[in-house]
């Protein structure tokens, strides 16, 4: 079953065509990679899916319903969550609060219950706390729940960002360069983690990555974007040997 269906998606910034006629289809449960040289338009695709930008042409269908025109928080409520290329945690808040904020959209009590400290508030807060800790435990951050997010080491900040995205209970998780700045060992662990969360949470994952070992190792299917156009798609083995992809990454072969 198709979960995300992008048809003829185009986006212009002024006269510059950032994306032209992009078609991308993801089936439910797939783990798909989106790669391409710097400036190819990968993050623009993510920003269009999550509602940061509005497309100039084309359609984005999630679960057969269009996402264009919706505000980002509505798209999140539909079941799309993302992480950011340059980490965007709530820096001055604790690790625990970062995850709790992602749980806010399903808060079980009303505002007046919070102000009057009614029993529904106490129960609601207890269940939020329990669930937030559950996500932190999965990512091995339980011991750091009271620490300020910006004081975590880089790799843990990346993990916290994924934990926060998962806490919105998405069905499609979009990861923008999750391994950026990680050492090979951390990247290896991240690969395991991505595989595991997909299985555990029954997720569909779309990820942008520069680290080829991660993309080739974890993705089932790969789309290659260059100058705003999809130049290739297929299983990792096909992509690795595709001459257009090699050309896009390494430049034309000297003949």
């Amino acid at each position, binding site marked *: 079953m198709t979960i995300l269906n992008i048809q003829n998606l185009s986006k212009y910034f002024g006269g510059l065509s950032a994306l032209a006629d992009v078609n991308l289809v993801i089936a439910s449960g797939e783990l798909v990679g989106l790669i391409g040289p710097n400036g190819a338009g990968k993050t623009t695709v993510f920003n269009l899916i999550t509602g940061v930008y509005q497309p100039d042409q084309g359609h984005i269908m999630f679960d057969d319903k269009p996402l264009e025109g919706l505000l980002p*928080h509505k798209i999140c409520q539909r079941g799309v969550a993302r992480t950011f290329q340059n980490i965007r945690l709530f820096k001055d808040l604790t690790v625990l609060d970062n995850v709790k904020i992602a749980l806010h959209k399903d808060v079980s009590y009303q505002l007046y219950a919070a102000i009057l400290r009614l*029993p529904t508030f106490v129960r609601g807060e207890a269940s939020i706390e329990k669930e937030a800790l559950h996500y932190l435990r999965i990512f091995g951050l339980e011991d750091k729940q009271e620490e300020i997010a910006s004081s975590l080491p880089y790799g843990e900040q990346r993990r916290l960002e994924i934990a926060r995205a998962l806490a919105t209970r998405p069905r499609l998780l979009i990861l923008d360069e999750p391994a950026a700045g990680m050492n090979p060992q951390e990247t290896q662990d991240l690969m395991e983690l991505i595989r595991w969360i997909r299985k555990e949470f029954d997720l569909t994952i779309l990820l942008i990555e520069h680290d080829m070992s991660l993309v080739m190792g974890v993705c089932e299917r790969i789309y290659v974007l260059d100058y705003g156009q999809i130049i290739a798609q297929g299983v990792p083995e096909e992509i690795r040997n595709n001459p257009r992809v090699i050309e896009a990454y390494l430049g034309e072969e000297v003949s």
Partner: protein
Amino acid sequence: MPSSKRQWLWFLINIVILAGIFTLVQYMIATRMLNQYYQINLASMCINIILAVSLNLINGFTGQLSLGHAGFMAVGAYVAAVCTKSMDLSFIPAIIAGSLAAALAGLIIGVPTLRLRGDYLAIATLGFGEIIRVILQNIEEVGGPAGIVGIERLTTWPYLFLATVITIIVIQNLINSSYGRAIISVREDEVAAEMMGVNTTWYKVMAFMIGAGFAGLAGALFAHYFYIIKPDTFNFLKSFDILVMVVLGGLGSTTGAILAAIFITVLTAYLQAFPAIRMIIYAMILILVMIYRPQGLLGNKELTRKTFSRFWGGSA
């Protein structure tokens, strides 16, 4: 509603402390140990605390720089004064009407301006605050530039005390809830908050409305304490005074806002004897705080039982 025994104990201790403060002051007023001069400053103190704590919700917790707080105070003051003076309503409905009118003004001003960010929002709210003042100046029914005179003094210590406590409790309970975390996430990173499913526009407007509503409450109490209100009382310098308290106390700290409001009220009272150097000393203190402690007295931390027990090496 406290859940454990320990929380119940603290809850009771807090009530006892509050009741103690209330009774003590009430006793001192009744026996004239506090003369008129002290009483006036006490009223100013309570009103300033309400103003600072409510502006802190907008500026400190939501991170939206608003410079129009005196405008909302004016709306509350005028509506409440008209209610008691011309419409013969009793005091409590008048206070409620003033607060609701200010909250409504907050909604009307918030919806268009909260799309703006940072400096732009500051200037827009400054402008709106001035518009409110100029409108009041031109309504003859409320006295025009001369304002409303001869408002009955209905604000007494019980009202002041109760209003201050309610303001602090409502805002603290709001902040320490999931709704409060949503509000703070807007300050931390609006884009990320939106991506995590937080309707950032709504929470900005909500915080703005609640803050404005409490400013209206402060205005209603003010009008019924000082007999006279005129548009000039609520000019942008008043907004600035409130902002100074919030910045001095630390953006995002309710206890900081309370302490700063008390400090500024006391300072103003003592410096009244030296009008020539009053503003100089006032400005010097601000400059020194900004140089040596730019995050404000308490930063974004709160003074809690934990802070105290840490100080005294206690056993909490």
